[in-house]
């Protein structure tokens, strides 16, 4: 070993950035997974352009992947990187503002040429000076292209194939910088390329050479150590993305309920990975219809629900808009249905690959008529499993459409996930008709919960007619009687409101005796929790109430909020949840902290805002 210094860190943020074809997502995933196996907490976030392959070396084509490693609980992929790996000058330019003072930049010096500078819009040949960061950062140049070429000499690959492996050289270098043995990376590569031995051999060779290159640099730069985390609850873990966790939540719920799972969906960024995952789970009997449009996605799911499957549809904001009328049908027909909206920047096509929380009011109110549906939101990538499962449970047990809001940030991001077993998950008991109820009307319901009894085609003695027209409360026949209509409107509302009896209480995290309550919902939990913890650690008194259930609200929500003198609602929109809370919680002045930039909060900006408010 060399004599390079080692610095111990509690947590560190690494960002990989390059052309969207440079393999940055894979490099980042491998690095985060091998760190997790070595005992670190991890959280990741990919940030990619909507262009599949923008012109090489240009600013538009830069794709990034950020990893946050910690030796204690971490909640977010981190704000600004401590270490930045850039594969070309464009990636440097895009990320230059973000790099922390004193941070390290590893760059492919082969691409830092005149043509590279031109493509990235640099006017001089010293981009670091031009960006005014040369004083504040440490540089590790590595001629990644040349080094990879010599590493793979004799393999007989063409140059294009060779250069595709340069991300492995970067990974080797990063493993060295973080004192990570590369065995685990080799294990991952074996899993990935096991069937292509030459490709595997080449990747392992480049990875190893990258690691050794670092070892032999004898730089004055210190390498990093991030120790094992000891506050993570013991157990078996994996790293999972929000979209995959959502998919698996649906699968678990179907099995728990003893139902077949049906997904009707249409490709839309950033939700499509849910359809990909479920289409790949035919082993679990999942039926996926890639529909001709968003409307057919949801209406085929409604048909499947009518016929007795656990039915879901996945989409993003524009798709949710197209599904509005059909959600109303599910409300009116009182059928179980799970609608997953992985929110992205809007309105219209907006910013498809970027994150936002701007669909909340659409989910709550975006339908004709009095049309209450359950609205809930997952808080982190791993959380998506639990809330997808609970969305199914509520839909099936309360005969209602449930809209589950996630977002591009938690959908694409990954986190550690403690592996569940089916046995430990709560029971799901759909509200079926019971023997002896043959001939009951389509509107027959539990008079306490107002939940309609479910019978499905094929059941003997329960044939009925359902539909989008108003029905008579007693007979289930179509009806336009004014008093009956109001009674049915109220019944559907009471049914949804009643669900609050089954919801967990709203928790207060941080300092319960705080001077200020921070309110958040959905995918911002990590940033808000980190900011609140940091403030409390520095002697301030601040609390967090984070919502996963929005309609209905947890029963204690009003009382909790009214306890605090100062309340600030933080969300990635212009104030939609604040607007909703103003209609639900009397006598409270809701302050707001909003960001609508297509990016998650940073912990830093939240701390600054909270300090000003206190």
């Amino acid at each position, binding site marked *: 070993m060399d004599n390079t210094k080692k610095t111990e860190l509690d947590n560190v943020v690494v960002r990989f950035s390059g052309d969207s074809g440079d393999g940055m997502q894979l490099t980042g995933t491998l690095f985060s997974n091998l760190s997790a196996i070595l005992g670190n907490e991890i959280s990741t976030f990919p940030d990619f352009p909507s262009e599949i392959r923008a012109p090489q070396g240009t600013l538009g084509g830069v794709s990034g992947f950020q990893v946050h490693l910690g030796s204690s609980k971490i909640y977010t992929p981190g704000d600004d990187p401590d270490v930045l790996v850039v594969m070309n000058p464009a990636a440097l330019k895009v990320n230059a503002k973000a790099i922390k003072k004193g941070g390290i930049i590893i760059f492919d010096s082969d691409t830092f040429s005149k043509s590279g500078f031109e493509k990235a819009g640099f006017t001089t040949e010293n981009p670091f000076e031009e960006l005014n960061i040369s004083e504040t950062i440490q540089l590790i140049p590595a001629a990644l292209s040349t080094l990879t070429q010599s590493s793979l000499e004799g393999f007989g690959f063409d140059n294009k194939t060779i250069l595709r492996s340069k991300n492995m050289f970067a990974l080797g270098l990063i493993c060295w910088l973080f004192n990570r043995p590369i065995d685990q990376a080799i294990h991952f590569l074996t899993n990935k390329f096991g069937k292509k031995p030459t490709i595997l051999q080449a990747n392992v060779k480049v990875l190893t050479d990258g690691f050794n290159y670092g070892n032999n640099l004898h730089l004055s730069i210190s390498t990093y150590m991030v120790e094992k985390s000891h506050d993570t609850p013991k157990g078996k873990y994996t790293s999972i993305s929000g979209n995959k966790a959502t998919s698996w939540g649906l699968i678990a719920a179907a099995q728990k309920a003893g139902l077949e799972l049906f997904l009707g969906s249409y490709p839309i960024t950033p939700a499509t990975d849910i359809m990909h995952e479920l289409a790949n789970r035919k*082993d679990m009997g999942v039926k996926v219809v890639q*529909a001709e449009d968003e409307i057919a996605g949801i209406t*085929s*799911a409604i048909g499947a629900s009518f*016929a007795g*499957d656990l*039915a879901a549809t996945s989409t993003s904001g524009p798709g949710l808009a197209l599904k509005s009328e*059909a959600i109303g049908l599910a409300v009116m027909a009182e059928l179980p249905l799970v609608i997953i909206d992985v929110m992205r920047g809007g309105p219209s096509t907006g910013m498809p690959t970027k994150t936002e929380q701007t669909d909340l009011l659409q989910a709550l109110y975006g339908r004709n008529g009095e049309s209450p549906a359950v609205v809930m939101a997952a808080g982190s990538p791993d959380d998506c499993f639990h809330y997808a499962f609970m969305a199914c449970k509520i839909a099936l047990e309360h005969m209602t459409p449930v809209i589950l809001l996630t977002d591009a940030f938690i959908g694409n991001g990954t986190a550690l996930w403690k592996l569940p*077993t089916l046995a430990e998950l709560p029971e799901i008991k759909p509200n079926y008709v019971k023997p002896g109820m043959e001939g009951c009307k389509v509107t027959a319901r539990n008079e306490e919960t107002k939940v309609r009894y479910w019978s499905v085609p094929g059941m003997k003695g329960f044939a009925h007619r359902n539909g989008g027209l108003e029905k008579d409360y007693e007979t289930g026949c179509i009806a336009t009687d004014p008093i009956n209509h109001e009674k049915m409107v109220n019944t559907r509302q009471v049914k949804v409101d009643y669900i609050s009896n089954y919801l967990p209480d709203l928790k207060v995290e941080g300092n319960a005796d705080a001077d200020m309550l921070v309110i958040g919902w959905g995918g911002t939990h990590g940033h808000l929790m980190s900011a609140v913890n940091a403030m409390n650690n520095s002697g301030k008194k601040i609390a967090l109430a984070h919502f996963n259930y929005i309609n209905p609200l947890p029963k204690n929500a009003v009382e909790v909020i009214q306890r605090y003198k100062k309340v600030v609602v933080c969300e990635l929109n212009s104030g939609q949840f604040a607007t909703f809370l103003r209609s639900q919680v009397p006598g409270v002045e809701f302050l707001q902290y909003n960001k609508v930039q297509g990016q998650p909060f940073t912990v830093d900006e939240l701390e600054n805002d909270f300090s000003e408010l206190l």
Partner: protein
Amino acid sequence: METTESTKTLYTAKDFKSDQYVRWCPGCGDYAVLNSLQKVMADMGVAPDDIAVISGIGCSSRLPYYSSSYGFHTIHGRAAAVATGVKVANPKLTVWQITGDGDCLAIGGNHFIHSVRRNVDLNVLLFNNQIYGLTKGQYSPTTKKGFVTKSSPFGTIERPFRPAELTFGARGTFFARLLDVDLKTAQLCMTAAAKHKGTSVVECLVNCVIFNDGAHSWISEKETRADRIIVLEDGQPMIFGKDRNKGLVLDGFNLKAVTIGENGITESNLLVHDATCQDSTIHMKLAMMEGPELPIAMGVIRDVEEETYDEAVVTQIAEVQAKSKVKTFDDLIATCEQWEM
């Protein structure tokens, strides 16, 4: 759905009638189609509990309320997509999709062509009265060009769709055409549709007495009907006419009506209908025939076998499951790259 001979005799049309009062306008052609459907359902012998009738919005889409089976009156244009979900969720069900020319070909055009393309095993009754009835008389995608309606006071300037052409364009495996007043052909078409595996499109020419009375009068008048339509039967020569002395031959690339006994034409010169021919060229020609030169084709025009979508879903899942070790959620969890913390 499989039925045994013994169950086939169990039902009468009455068993398929619901307790609801049928609320179409007096004289509406939809009544005849409903009655034929209930007769065919009884003949098919599938229990009402194993049938789902799915509709969109429009006059005809009220039909599920009048059927004693399971029924779902959904939203405008989406019946095909809802029905697809029903059939994929439970392939054992017999699924009838009830739709009209507006519901199916305007707002629901996309779902229509895609369900036909996928060949989902649905029996589609497409009620074509060439008008919007429930919204009180606007032109539809099948209204004849130039026709005056409330939304085309100077005559429509749009070219109409012809449902058969759309069906064949979407690679449909079954197309039949019936006329409300011809009960015998109606039942023949619906029976064939019910037996066909795949999307069976049955164009039901129905009269709207209020907004488009007489739209099909060219062929609905009893005295002249036999000379103006041809009821196609698989394997039979294409003969028509009151005196059964007219027929169809191929003249170059076109169909031509001829009279048996004139110009040396005998029955053996006539085309023989082959509904099962994969190539839809002749089916298209037949379906597009127009008077007065040619008779309007009725009956089963196309009926070919192809794998259905719902069967393929089941087959593919079974194939994957046979090879996979993952059977339960816990097995799935075990496939994760995992580590102890």
